[in-house]
């Protein structure tokens, strides 16, 4: 469990606009979870993104307690509006 976990966070639509970026590289502690990644993104701009947005891990909706591996891609998903 030693070392750090590099992951990539993707932002879309209203979140990306409010945050000013579509991609945020993160370096998290070993054992970090999806929730830790969301917190790390929000720490840089707390008002841009709600406290508990929907999140995807490697293109699948994920729970906040799932653990991250190096190279994982998380995505913060604003309310969807397709169709």
């Amino acid at each position, binding site marked *: 469990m030693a070392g750090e976990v590099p992951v990539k966070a993707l932002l879309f*639509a*209203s979140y990306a606009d409010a945050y000013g970026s579509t991609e945020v590289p993160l370096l998290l502690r070993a054992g970090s979870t999806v929730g830790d990644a969301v917190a790390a993104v929000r720490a840089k701009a707390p008002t841009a993104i709600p406290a508990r947005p929907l999140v995807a891990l490697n293109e699948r909706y994920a729970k906040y307690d799932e653990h991250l591996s190096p190279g994982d891609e998380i995505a913060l998903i604003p309310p*969807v509006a397709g169709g």
Partner: protein
Amino acid sequence: MTRVIDVAALVAEVAHPSCGAASVFLGTVRNVNDGRPVTGIEYRGYEPMAVREITGILSRARDRFGTEHIVVEHRLGLLGLGEVSIAIVAAHPHRQAAMDATRYAIEEIKKTVPIWKLEHYADGTREWVDPTRASIVIEPSPVAEVVG
């Protein structure tokens, strides 16, 4: 996902001699939303996940309605008024299941597929559509008032 949707091609794709019905659902760009005149809608998506989600929905629709013959195409990019943003076509031996399958697919797509709409308004402003915010507005139902 940015090219114009060829509905006839989709119908041809699902057509099968065993099917007596093909149901088509089209989503189109409307000229007004929440009372604000709209000039166009820009669709953006998390494409690989959107494809994955739509694939899952189609798989569930096939199981649920007993037909292999269902397709979805969703456009991304800036669309003008009246343009088709999504087409769903389901073919089935019988009409009820064909219609139910298209309805199921559009309702599920609206719930989970990571695609977003940036509405362009006539006054030059733009805004991301947030269905969770819109759902707070509760309008009285005329149908309910008929009761009694």
